[in-house]
């Protein structure tokens, strides 16, 4: 196996910075507003907390919610069956305009 096979090269995320707790005391509101990195706060090389911007947290939260929704849709027998049927309808051109459906129902 090559020396450079997957897993042999350490992965470094340049958007993450490991800093001492003392850095936290030096941060002011301007620093927090312009912070482009995620800070891992540590004491004696032990990670204690993670500091990231509010916007980044909201993005993470949305991503987690999206993931949960996806897992739910694909795991729920009822929803996954409906999802597959819907995709099959689209693939086979079985779609109709919503206004037309409403008009047809009102006629009946």
């Amino acid at each position, binding site marked *: 196996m090559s020396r450079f096979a997957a897993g042999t090269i350490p992965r470094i995320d340049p958007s993450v910075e490991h800093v001492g707790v003392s850095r936290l005391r030096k941060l002011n509101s301007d620093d927090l507003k312009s912070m482009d990195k995620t800070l891992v706060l540590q004491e004696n090389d032990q990670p204690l907390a993670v500091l990231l911007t509010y916007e980044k947290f909201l993005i993470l939260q*949305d991503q987690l919610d999206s993931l949960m929704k996806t897992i739910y*849709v694909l*795991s729920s027998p009822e*929803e996954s069956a*409906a999802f597959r*049927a819907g995709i099959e*309808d689209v693939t086979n051109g079985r*779609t109709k305009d919503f206004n037309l459906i409403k008009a047809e129902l009102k006629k009946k």
Partner: protein
Amino acid sequence: MNAPFQIQFTATAEATYSEFYKEAANCLAAGDERNPKVTLFRSLEEALTKGIPSDPFNQKNALSGSLSNVFRFSRENVRICYLGHERDPRIIVLYICQSRAEESSSYATFTWMVMSGKFDAAFASLGLNPPDRRALTPSPTVN
């Protein structure tokens, strides 16, 4: 969005919509305006005419990864799953469904799924023991 927003239904979605429409119409014809079927249909109409068109491609409603063009909109006890893209002023409703339980958080849903045993094989493949099921809770829904 410049072009008028269009909504199309798949045959699957149309069947559910027609069923909800007819059930609500029957209740209204019988003078039962407060029937949950009427409320359900009104929620569905409100979602299709106001809720979704106001912000159809909100990432909060998008599924993840390769399904990011699929959105799942929730309004009260109605779930509408549709296909769409920002470049196209048109969505295709894949299916409509009704939730059975109260709204719950995604975290609670995931906990329930883990506790239901759905992921036991995945845990086993990682050499992990399945979770303690003594704290099993009833099935929640995702909003």
